[in-house]
């Protein structure tokens, strides 16, 4: 142990003794590229305020680059600004803008390739094609960045934070808007996505595929073109996220496709065309979620099985649940439904008769979408009542046998 401490102190001593700080803009260091050429592992480069147009800058040394007063690195609509390939590199306080746009190469403000222990912290990104792009990298932190782009459907646009084949990445407290997908993951494992705000992106606020064992906590996904899509993944935890105002014919608060063994807890779904759409989802637990003012709160396709919905609050949704099949082996118990009209004679807080969350009209609309025109008509109300008494076309098995008489208190708990 002593020897270890000694070696550690010794090494630390060397690092501290040899670390140099370069200030960009002096006679010896006229620009950032020069500073990087001069720097060795462990050095720090300070960039004072100003606009720098240096084309593509490649960093392969373990250095820290700090911007003072948000100096602008401008890509002049032509270049990828920073390309990182190494380890222990930190980039802080820099304003990136105007990257090139290319259909074939994914040009980014910061591209990180085959690297590890990279920190991208407190930067601003404006009018970038891809913002931060990581491939084949691990153990890195992307925190407190602000990314805005002005993508439109017609023009090509890249993703805000894009990860491909990465592991152990932390993405925390970033704000992303105007990109194709706010946060995009493909083949990413063991990562944490926390406290981000992804709003008004063209397609999805968050999109991931083939990305197992990740956790998504306390993020906000608001008003994105098609909401959030989560696909072909096992063991996902989504807790305390907000999915709001995703309106449109193919927009979902949360689209789950081919998901297994996952958890969706304490999330808040408000004003989405469809709160959660489930397709081929198995063994997933939905608990303590709030569904408020959605078109459909939950749309459960018949290919989904062994899921549990419990202690969720459903209120003010047009349809609480819809399904396209009859036999559904999912457990839907002990939820609160504002449409429940049963009674509780023994006063134990649990309704005495079961609640069928799928209304007959929801079944009809599932088959004939145009029938939605008749919504709230007197006839539909009559048939719905009749169907509730004697179910004919609504799935009999799909019911909440212990509906809660009172809404659960799901106000955000302390983190």
């Amino acid at each position: 142990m002593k020897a270890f401490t000694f070696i550690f102190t010794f090494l630390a001593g060397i690092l501290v003794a040899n670390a140099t700080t370069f200030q960009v803009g002096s006679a010896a260091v006229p620009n950032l590229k020069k500073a990087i050429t001069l720097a060795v592992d462990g050095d720090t480069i300070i960039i004072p305020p100003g606009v720098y147009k240096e084309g593509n800058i490649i960093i392969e040394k373990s250095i820290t680059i700090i911007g003072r007063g948000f100096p602008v690195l401008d890509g002049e609509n032509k270049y990828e600004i920073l390309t990182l390939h190494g380890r222990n590199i930190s980039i802080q306080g820099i304003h990136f803008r105007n990257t090139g746009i290319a259909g074939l190469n994914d040009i980014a403000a910061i591209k990180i390739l085959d690297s590890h222990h990279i920190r991208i912290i407190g930067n601003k990104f404006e009018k970038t094609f891809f913002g931060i792009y990581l491939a084949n990298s691990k153990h890195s932190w992307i925190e407190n960045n602000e990314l805005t782009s002005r993508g439109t459907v017609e023009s090509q646009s890249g993703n805000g934070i894009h990860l491909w084949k990465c592991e152990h990445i932390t993405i925390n407290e970033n704000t992303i808007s105007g990109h194709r997908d706010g946060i995009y993951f493909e083949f990413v494992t063991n990562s944490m996505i926390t406290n981000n705000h992804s709003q008004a992106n063209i397609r999805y606020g968050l999109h991931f595929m083939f990305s197992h064992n990740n956790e998504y906590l306390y993020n906000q996904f608001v008003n994105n073109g098609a909401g959030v899509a989560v696909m072909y993944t096992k063991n996902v935890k989504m807790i305390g996220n907000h999915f709001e105002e995703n309106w449109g014919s193919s927009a979902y608060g949360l689209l789950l496709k081919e998901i297994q063994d996952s958890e969706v807890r304490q999330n808040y779904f408000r004003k989405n065309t469809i709160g959660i759409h489930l397709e081929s989802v198995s063994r997933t637990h939905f608990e303590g979620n709030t569904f408020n003012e959605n078109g459909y709160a939950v749309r459960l396709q018949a290919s989904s099985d062994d899921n549990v919905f419990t202690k969720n609050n459903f209120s003010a949704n047009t349809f609480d649940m819809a399904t396209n099949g009859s036999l559904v082996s999912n457990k839907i118990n002990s939820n609160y439904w504002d449409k429940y009209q049963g009674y509780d004679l023994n006063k134990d807080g649990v309704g005495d008769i079961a609640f069928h969350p799928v209304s007959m009209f929801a079944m009809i609309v599932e088959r004939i979408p145009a029938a939605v025109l008749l919504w709230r008509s007197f006839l539909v109300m009559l048939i719905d009542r009749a169907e509730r008494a004697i179910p004919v076309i609504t799935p009999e098995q799909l019911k909440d046998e212990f509906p809660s008489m009172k809404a659960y208190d799901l106000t955000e708990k302390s983190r």
Partner: protein
Amino acid sequence: MKIFILIAISIFLVSCAIEPEPLVFGKDQCHTCKMTLMDKKFGAEIVTKKGKVYKFDDVNCLFNFYHAGTVDKNDVQHKLVIDFSSPGKLIDAGKAFFLKSSEIKSPMASQVAAFEAPPNELKAQWEATELTWDDLQHQFH
């Protein structure tokens, strides 16, 4: 009178023509994976003899549907794929040249891109394998 008949026939013919429909990127949804189509370099479409159009964001999604039997293979009128080198353009999948390489980052990770003209340059650059529609049919089964 003759003109009337002619007009009637032409309207009849026009309304019955079974034509491919362009993919609307940013709006259309993939029939298989439900993703909104975004990348104009990739995409595919199947049009049935009855004129029903199914759109896909990647060739593996197309084959997923094609092999599932929802539509009988004999009822397929058009099979189309997007030409990688002219984004947004649908071409006949039967005549297209396909490349497969890990360099190709398609929306559903099929690693396949389609081309109207032989893509010799990209084939060398990506160290890609060249495939035909029939090869792909067996690959994505």
